[in-house]
């Protein structure tokens, strides 16, 4: 900016700068080392307090998962395919397992399907609690950071009992799940999920019904229904814009058909609605878990024994599930070997990223955290 020349006769006085259009615009690098960015950079151009241009720059945690998957067989892919989103690791393995089962032609036992659903729903809550904690701290609400992260421990404890690991479970395998649950898991799960639901309802007073939060996030970053469809957004972003689309309902996988739950849809399409949908989903997840615990067969095998290096047919599959952030799909191309020829992990965060420049342009800088994080965006997952 300093090397710009001024028109003749309009030289700036010492200490003063003439206001030119270009001088009004300041470039702000939000991230990757910024308390409000996550593992990504958002290049903003601000005019005063208004964002005039937004360019998301992901890729800081790109690990080449898709390339790595081409070198590993269908079983050894499991531990590293869950790495992009370790808080939701069951859900990111879900489409992979469904797809490989379709490739290999395996039918999973009934109990394993229920266990998968329970693990996936617990994991969705774990992810959403973490997300909600960061949303809270982004809005300067430190209690809303501590409470979800603390209550998340209830579910982590359950998943720990179930799978043997706190976050990277490696629990789903093609053909079922790795192990059956321990003896009195049903009672413990029911007790902790009930308490968790009670805690979730307590969030309303300090957060979701808080007039300051509502005034802060209402009518900010409004994504209209048409734009949400056109931009191909998914998950909570889509459902907050009034589109009733949930893979669990629309394309039910495993036993979601038999379970009793509903899809949460809000019409507003603003940050508040986008941030409320995951919370409502968590309450719904508690219902699903209770229902699944009730309907689950009390015993039975949970895992189909596979060969150490199974081989898929010469075909391709495209399976999708509803993860904590939206539709998570895997496009697995097989050429008949024990290793996949190509895996495309189509992650919801990456699909929702396209809405970010659309929403942030024209907003105030103060709206950056709520709009950015209400997109339910997980940088590590988007980078894969």
């Amino acid at each position, binding site marked *: 900016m300093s090397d710009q020349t001024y028109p003749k006769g309009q030289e700036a006085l010492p200490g003063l700068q003439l206001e030119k259009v270009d001088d009004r615009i300041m470039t*702000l690098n939000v991230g990757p080392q910024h308390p409000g960015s996550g593992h990504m950079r958002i290049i903003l151009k601000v005019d005063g307090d208004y964002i005039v241009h937004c360019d998301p720059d992901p890729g800081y945690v790109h690990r080449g998962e898709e390339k790595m998957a081409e070198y590993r067989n269908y079983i050894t892919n499991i531990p590293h395919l869950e790495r992009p989103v370790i808080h939701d690791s069951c859900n990111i393995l879900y489409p992979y397992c469904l797809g490989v089962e379709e490739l290999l032609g395996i039918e999973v036992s009934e109990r394993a399907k229920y266990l998968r659903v329970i693990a996936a729903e617990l994991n969705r809550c774990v992810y959403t609690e973490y997300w909600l904690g960061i949303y809270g*701290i982004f809005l300067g609400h430190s*209690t809303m950071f501590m409470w979800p992260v603390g209550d998340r421990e209830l579910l982590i404890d359950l998943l720990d009992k179930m799978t043997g690991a706190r976050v990277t479970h490696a629990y789903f395998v093609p053909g079922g799940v790795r192990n059956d649950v321990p003896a009195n898991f049903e009672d413990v799960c029911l007790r902790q999920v009930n308490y968790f639901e009670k805690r979730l309802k307590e969030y309303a007073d300090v957060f979701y019904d808080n007039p300051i939060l509502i*005034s802060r996030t209402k009518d900010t970053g409004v994504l209209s229904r048409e734009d949400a469809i056109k931009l191909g957004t998914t998950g909570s972003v889509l459902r907050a814009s009034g589109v009733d689309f949930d893979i669990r309902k629309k394309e039910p996988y495993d036993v979601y058909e038999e379970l009793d739950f509903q899809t949460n849809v809000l019409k507003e399409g603003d940050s508040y609605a986008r941030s409320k949908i995951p919370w409502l989903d968590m309450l719904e997840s508690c219902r699903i878990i209770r229902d699944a615990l009730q309907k689950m067969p009390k015993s039975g095998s949970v895992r189909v024994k596979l060969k150490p290096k199974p081989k898929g047919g010469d075909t391709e599959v495209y399976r999708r599930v509803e993860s904590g952030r939206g539709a998570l799909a895997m496009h697995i191309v097989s050429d008949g070997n024990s290793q996949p020829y190509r895996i495309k992990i189509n992650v919801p965060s990456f699909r929702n990223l396209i809405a970010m420049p659309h929403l942030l342009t024209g907003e105030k*800088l103060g709206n950056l*955290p709520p709009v950015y994080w209400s997109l339910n965006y997980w940088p590590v997952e988007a980078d894969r």
Partner: protein
Amino acid sequence: MSVIAPKFRLGYLIKGITDNIFWIIVLVTLMGIPAIQIVLIYIDFPVIDGEIWNPFRVLDAMTHPERALPLVKNFMQTDLFKIIAFPGFGFAALIAAAVIFVERKMLAKLQLRVGPFYCGKVEGILQLMADGLKLISKEIIIPAKADKPLFWVSPVLFAATAGAFVALIPVAPGWVVADIDLGLLAVFAVIGFFPIITIVSAWSANSKFPFIGGIRALYQMVSFEIPLILSLLGIVMLTGSLNLVEIVESQVNFPWIIFMPVGAIVFFICILAELERIPFDLPEAESEIVAGWLTEFSGMMYGLVQLGSYLKLYAFAALFVVLFLGGWNGPVIVPPFPAEIVTDGITVMPDALTVEIVGLPLFTHEMINGTIWFILKTVGVIFFILLPRGVFPRVRIDLLLKIGWYKLIVLAFVNIFIALALVYGGIIGPGGIL
């Protein structure tokens, strides 16, 4: 051995210490004692209770503590003591430190966690000291293109201005550092310094995030000073005085918050905004602008700003108490001292050592009562200043300005009308019924 840690031997250390002590003794005897002699020739000895306090008298008092009592009492009436210790900086800093501890523990309880725990054995009571030590020992980094003198001076100015604010607060009857007739105006003047210091430090850092934070702080403080001042006009009308001590004395029967709850609410919200506390901590909004105007401060410069802001918190809470909650007024807790203590004195350890201290109570019972009530009320107000941090998110800058200009100013005028109605209705105020 590495170069960083030079050879260490205990003998060298002890030798160094003894050497230093030796030279200090030599220098004091050779230069200090003659200097004191020379000074003693020229100064007048203080006269307390008709007694000249010459050096021999002082030495005498050192051997008999009870004889030093008049000196102590006299010292406590000096401005120096008031500034450094009781109603001034020391007292305020103590309360500020307690506030930081209470804030951490209370927030932790609210968030179902523990808070500071290990430092100091008992519930982490020494955590603040540890943090202070850490801040002192940290390197001070100054941005290369910063305006260095301004950058250096702004944290000092901030703490000093907060200290000046503290000096205006009357704590107990007669215990105020600066008893100014236009005390409330002085308060407004001191508050007016804060945005200037903020913008100076933000500008001198020559960095983007401090700049945005400084501009936000300027907006926020300027727009909230108007309702702040307006909300206090009602009290000035009712008391007919700007002197803070007189305002407190006017609330012997009832605190002004009974008649002016609207003004109290407006003033409280303005306090939150002026203190940059959640929900109005926009100048330091970390998720948007890193740490706002504090981004480039490091080490003890940051520590000074924090000290200043907690002093400011205490001062504002105390101002609320003084203006709305009746200051030191309250029912008697400590009864008046029995007369014999004052006249005959207390006997310390009757068998072993008989020392009769006459006029022992250093403070009058009014003063102790007043201080207790003042501290209780201030702690209550501080609790309500701290609580929003646990339950509210941050507001946005335009909403903040809207609250300031549209709502609070209107409410402040409503408060003024209430005050006018009370005055012209002849209910209270100069020559009123009550």
